[in-house]
């Protein structure tokens, strides 16, 4: 990081805090602080919906995942547009016309206060933990770049976001989200351009894609039906559908976005905007990860992307580490030669020569991966760190080692922006649920706007500190994006089940919804502990069990009672 990079990052942080705090003026009443007086345009809400979902994990974790596993992760998003359509038909008009502040408030209107409180509590628990993980991702990067401790970095990110969210409320969250999305798009565009211009002169984008395709990095559809397989077309279309329905329709951090829209039509349009843009945007992010893979076919990648762990292992067993590194460099050179040969063969018409070059490249790549795996195991055993995984370090190390001055600062600012856009929405949602579903509902029913806004600001601060503490423990949990989704999957399916009962099952009653939710969560716990099914399917299990149990229990309640 040079002076210019620091200046860009500092300018971004200063601007975003100033921009957020100046929204305080329009946030002095409950409706203004929590819902922006229901007056935001659809395009701002739409960008905020996307910014909330796209955390720094999306930038860092997904590009790392594409580098190591290819584009299979894209399948996860195939159901998103269909989920948005279902939500536009169902929950958007329901919530908007019910004039609620939180999704859970609606459950009291439909069932009872017990169900509302329980669902809101589960939201606070799962989202409180989730936002901690979302802070941890950029902290991991910055602790390497800046040489700071992870704890100091976590508090720097978490507290900065907490300050502007605390003062500006949802208006600050939404309008900073819009600007942060612009910064992210600019950052991604610049990275893409620089990677493409960094390939050797005789290697085109098409050549690079052939290399990536031969290595299995461009798989966008996997039709194998295996519940233990993480990303297939089936888990993407069905299991992820349940996750998206729950996340966008029942999670306050997303529901609050469309509740700020001017009308039902504008709320719907904001969700459909996300439906149109999400898959292409995710494709672009994964493509960057794949192109980083192609870049490293011709340039030696670090043997271990986590510099701190690599140095630690090298210091402990320097001779062994040196030998491994020497072998790694040699194997890389062999793979590079094979890659150049494969690219050359692509341009000729000799099919047999092309097949031979392709086989040669695949063999060299396999040997390379074996040595890299050996190096990873070496670090695990030497550092006594069985959960070591450097997939999240791939993109930041690539940026730091290969991007020019100024661009590094821009990318770091974009990663900051991605993190802060999610953190702010979620802190705001956590504060809203704490204030509306607990403080106002149970402790101060006759309170004034001033009291509720003050409580909302204090709650934002407390949740910010809590998230920072969770983040400290979340930095070593493997691929961060999966950790967040796993957190969600434990509660999301069951939460969705309660809303299905509320909106779609006339015979559902409060007792059924309450106990159905508990049955749903218990079923997910059993599925996670006693089966091998992948976590995305937990959403299906939780939802189906909640709806079935909720309906059956409702039959035991007289039809004319609530």
């Amino acid at each position: 990081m040079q002076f210019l990079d620091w200046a860009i990052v500092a300018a971004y942080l200063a601007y975003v805090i100033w921009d957020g705090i100046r929204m305080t003026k329009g946030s002095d009443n409950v409706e203004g602080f929590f819902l922006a007086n229901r007056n935001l345009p659809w395009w701002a809400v739409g960008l905020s919906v996307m910014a909330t979902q796209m955390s720094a994990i999306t930038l860092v974790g997904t590009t790392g995942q594409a580098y190591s596993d290819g584009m299979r992760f894209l399948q996860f998003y195939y159901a998103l547009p269909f989920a948005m359509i279902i939500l536009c038909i169902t929950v958007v008009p329901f919530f908007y016309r019910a004039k609620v502040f939180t999704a859970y408030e609606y459950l009291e209107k439909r069932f009872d206060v017990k169900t509302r409180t329980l669902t809101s509590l589960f939201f606070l628990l799962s989202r409180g933990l989730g936002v901690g993980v979302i802070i941890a991702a950029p902290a991991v990067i910055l602790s390497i770049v800046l040489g700071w401790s992870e704890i100091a970095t976590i508090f720097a990110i978490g507290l900065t976001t907490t300050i502007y969210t605390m003062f500006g409320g949802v208006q600050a969250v939404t309008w900073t989200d819009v600007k942060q999305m612009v910064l992210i798009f600019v950052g991604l565009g610049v990275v893409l351009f620089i990677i493409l211009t960094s390939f050797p002169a005789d290697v085109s984008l098409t050549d690079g894609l052939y290399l990536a395709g031969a290595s299995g990095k461009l798989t966008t559809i996997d039709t194998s039906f295996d519940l233990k397989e993480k990303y297939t077309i089936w888990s993407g279309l069905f299991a992820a559908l349940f996750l998206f329905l729950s996340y966008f329709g029942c999670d306050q951090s997303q529901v609050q976005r469309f509740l700020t829209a001017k009308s039902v039509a504008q709320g719907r349009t904001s969700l459909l905007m996300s439906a149109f843009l999400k898959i292409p945007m995710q494709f672009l992010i994964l493509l960057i990860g794949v192109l980083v893979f192609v870049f490293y076919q011709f340039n030696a990648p670090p043997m271990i992307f986590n510099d701190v762990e690599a140095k630690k292992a090298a210091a402990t067993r320097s001779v062994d580490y040196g030998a491994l590194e020497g072998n790694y460099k040699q194997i890389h050179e062999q793979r590079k030669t094979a890659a150049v040969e494969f690219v050359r063969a692509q341009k000729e018409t000799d099919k047999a020569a092309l097949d031979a070059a392709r086989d040669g490249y695949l063999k060299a790549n396999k040997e390379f991966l074996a040595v890299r795996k050996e190096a990873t195991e070496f670090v695990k055993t030497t550092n006594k760190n069985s959960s070591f995984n450097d997939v999240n370090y791939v993109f930041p190390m690539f940026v730091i080692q290969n991007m020019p001055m100024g661009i590094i600062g821009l990318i770091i600012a974009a990663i900051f922006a991605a993190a802060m856009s999610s953190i702010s929405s979620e802190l705001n949602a956590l504060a809203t649920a704490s204030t509306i579903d607990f403080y106002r509902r149970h402790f101060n029913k006759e309170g004034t706007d001033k009291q509720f806004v003050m409580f909302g600001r204090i709650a934002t601060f407390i949740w910010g500190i809590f998230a920072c503490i969770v983040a400290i423990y979340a930095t070593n949990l493997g691929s961060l994006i999966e950790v967040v989704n796993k957190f969600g999957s434990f509660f999301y399916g069951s939460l969705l089940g309660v809303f299905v009962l509320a909106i779609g099952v006339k015979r559902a009653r409060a007792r059924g919804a309450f106990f159905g939710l508990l049955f749903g969560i218990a079923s997910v716990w059993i599925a996670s502990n006693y089966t091998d099914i992948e976590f995305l399917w937990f959403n299906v299990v939780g939802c189906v069990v909640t709806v079935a149990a909720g309906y059956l229990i409702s039959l035991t309640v007289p039809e004319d009672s609530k």
Partner: protein
Amino acid sequence: MNKEESEVKIDKELPDSWWYRVYAAVAVTTVIVIALLWAFSQYFSS
């Protein structure tokens, strides 16, 4: 259509039939995008 006209149009409570056409367009576009991604994957992996 200028910006103001566009805002006015979108603020009206549009009939369900209009929305269903929009949803159908989103669904069809998604299927086409997924098919294109599959074709992209097949083209460069062969």
